[in-house]
Structure formats: structure tokens, C-alpha cells
């Protein structure tokens, strides 16, 4: 199924935005203003709800005219595009969003045609599915790891780098004992919060923007 690549789901939703001449400011501008205030880090609604690797929200004002000899045409509605790369099955993911961040979902999608609100869970899921467009081709660099597995692996990578750097040339018995303690501490440490930037590290593998 093109919407999935391995265990990752590629969700594409286009929700028509309400076109109301009397609304001031217009609904699309209200969405944009709200999105501009929404946190993008660990307080992001997508960090608070489970299962989002990367997601974006975009107001699509119109289709794009590429010039002659193509025909110029325009959309009747503006659309809110929701593109998400998430774990597992769609129903579970949408349920998780509605259960965790219904207030933010309502603040965004209440400007869209026919949005029923996140409180009515089944209506919310049905609405999202009605607006879903099937992905034609979906590529994922890593397609078999969940968000929490990835955050855990990044935490492990950082910790292992520090451990190796500080245990060079140590005698085997002490190394083994300290390794056992290191692993126990690492396993009991909480998984880092989704969306957190983390501390920049000294060890680099390459140049800028590699």
C-alpha cells in the first residue's frame, strides 16, 4: 500500500478551508496566525501526542500557473495540507492526536469545511479520512523504527560516544564493571522528549549541513 513504507505511515490530508466573505480576518489567515504561535519543540502538539516523526501544516492558496502554453486555472477553495510521517496504523494515530491535543486540533481545523471537532472521536476520524489523499510513492530513509525507538537510539549513540571517550585504556575487569553500570543506567533513563533539540555535541563527522 503506497501510504505505508515498512512500519511508517505517510498521511496526506487536504482540508478545504471555509470561504466566508464576512469573516475578518479570513479563515486561512486565522489558521496561519495560529500556526505561527504554535510551539515547534517539545511543547508542540505533535510532540505531546504519540507517534509523529515529522509533520507539516501548509495553507495551499491555489494551484500554480507555470506559464504559456499551459492553461491558467484556479481552485475554488483554499486547502489546509497536513502531511505527517507517523508510526503504525492510521486509526490509532488519529485517535492518539484527538485524545492528546484536541484543543489545538480544534483551533486549527475549526476553520475548515465540515470539521466535526475532535471530541466526537469517530466523526473526527471519518472527517480526516474523507480529506485523505492516497500517497502515490512514499520514501522513508528508516522505515522500521518507531519514534520512541529512534529517540532511544539517539540517546544511546550520545551516551556510548561519551563512554568510549572516557574509558580508553582501562583495565579489562574495571571496564567490564563500569560497562555493566553504564548499561543499567542507560536502560533506566527516560526516553528523551520528542521535539527536544538536545545539546549540540563536540564530536562531528563532517562539514556544515552534511
Amino acid at each position: 500500500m503506497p501510504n505505508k513504507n515498512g512500519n511508517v505511515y505517510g498521511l496526506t490530508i487536504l482540508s478545504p478551508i471555509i470561504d466566508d466573505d464576512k469573516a475578518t480576518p479570513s479563515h486561512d489567515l486565522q489558521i496561519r496566525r495560529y500556526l505561527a504561535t504554535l510551539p515547534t519543540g517539545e511543547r508542540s502538539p505533535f510532540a505531546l501526542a504519540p507517534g509523529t516523526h515529522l509533520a507539516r501544516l501548509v495553507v495551499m492558496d491555489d494551484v500554480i500557473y507555470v506559464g504559456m502554453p499551459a492553461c491558467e486555472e484556479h481552485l475554488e477553495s483554499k486547502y489546509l495540507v497536513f502531511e505527517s510521517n507517523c508510526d503504525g496504523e492510521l486509526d490509532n494515530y488519529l485517535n492518539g492526536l484527538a485524545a492528546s491535543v484536541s484543543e489545538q486540533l480544534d483551533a486549527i481545523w475549526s476553520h475548515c469545511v465540515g470539521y466535526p471537532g475532535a471530541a466526537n472521536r469517530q466523526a473526527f476520524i471519518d472527517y480526516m479520512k474523507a480529506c485523505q489523499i492516497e500517497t502515490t510513492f512514499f520514501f522513508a530513509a528508516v522505515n522500521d523504527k518507531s519514534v520512541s525507538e529512534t529517540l532511544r537510539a539517539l540517546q544511546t549513540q550520545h551516551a556510548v560516544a561519551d563512554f568510549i571517550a572516557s574509558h580508553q585504556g582501562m583495565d579489562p575487569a574495571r571496564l567490564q564493571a563500569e560497562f555493566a553500570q553504564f548499561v543499567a543506567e542507560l536502560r533506566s533513563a527516560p526516553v528523551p522528549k520528542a521535539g527536544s533539540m538536545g545539546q549540540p555535541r563536540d564530536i562531528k563527522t563532517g562539514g556544515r549541513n552534511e
Partner: protein
Amino acid sequence: MSNINGKVYAMNAITPMKPWKTFVLRGFFFLLGHIKPLQQDLINLSFIEFARWVVLPRKRFPYLGNGQLQEDLQYDYLLFFSNFNGTWNQYIDAFSAVLSKGLNLVWRWSEKFPGSVPVTPFKQYIARVQFDTDYYYTAYPHTTANDLKSAHIVQASLDSLCQNAQSCDPEQFADAYLRFVLEVQSHLGETGEAPTVF
């Protein structure tokens, strides 16, 4: 609004296609999805975390009633969403240099596509059909696709070392630990600085 969050850039593009051409494009994507070696260049580039192409037929724009006007369009549309590491120019340059044949097969069905080589008209075309991101979230903003792959390699190696760490004597452990270090040593650093948001 920003197309950038940490080390990831969100790109959106939409291009018009004559409806009969979308069938050809769907056929190409079907082959690309089912013949993995065809994806090798995309995988080897290793700076794309997630990307997707969505063919949107002109009669399939979501219509929900409630006063919404139905779309009346002549073209089908190809939507492209990419989450990549680095800057826009690096991305388009690399696409043009490494994936030009594949890109031509994807976009040659779109109106006025000039081809991905030479790069100047290609960049002009992409800039024209791109639209900006209003909100962009990533669960691991300080991480590139290479960082992700490396982190999972380190995790798997560590898990493997842990399986035998308790049962072996210190000398055996030291040997296994050395092999572990050799295995992960090139996967411990992080990639360079994030692009700057202007």
C-alpha cells in the same frame, strides 16, 4: 512560518499534468515501489528523511458539501513533499547531479518541466512551483538521515554486546568491547551545524 526546523527542510511543490499523463506516472511509481534497486540513488544520497509524491486527480479534491464549491479543473496535479537535510540549493544541486534521470521520469509529465539538467532552469522551475510551509515539526530536529542510521547501528551493536557481557570473563569482554568500538567508531559523531533560519 519557516521551511526549516533544526536540520530538516520542508519542501512543498505542486505541478500541473495533463490527465492522461498521470497514468504513465503512476506506472513509473509502481515500478519504483516494487523494484528496490531503482531506489538505490535515492537511498545513497542519504539526506532525505521522508519524501512523497502524491498524484491528485482533478476530480478527487476533497469535497465535503456544506457550501464548499466543487473544483472544476483541467489538470491533474502532482504534489511533492520532501523532508531533507541541508539547504535548498544543496538539495536541488544534488538532485540535478545525481538523480537527473529519475527526476526527469517523475516530472517530465508535468507542464513546462524543463528537465533537471542544466540546473539553472530546473531551479527556476522548482522555485516557481514551490509553496512555503506554515508549520513544521520534527521529533528529532538536531538529527539528519545519516545521524538516524548511525544511531540505530550503535543501538544494535550495543544490544549485541550486552547479550554476552555478563557471562564472559574480563579478557573476553575486553576483546568483544574492542570489536564493538571498531564497529561503531564511525557512527558516533553528529553531522554539522543546522542551516540558519532567515
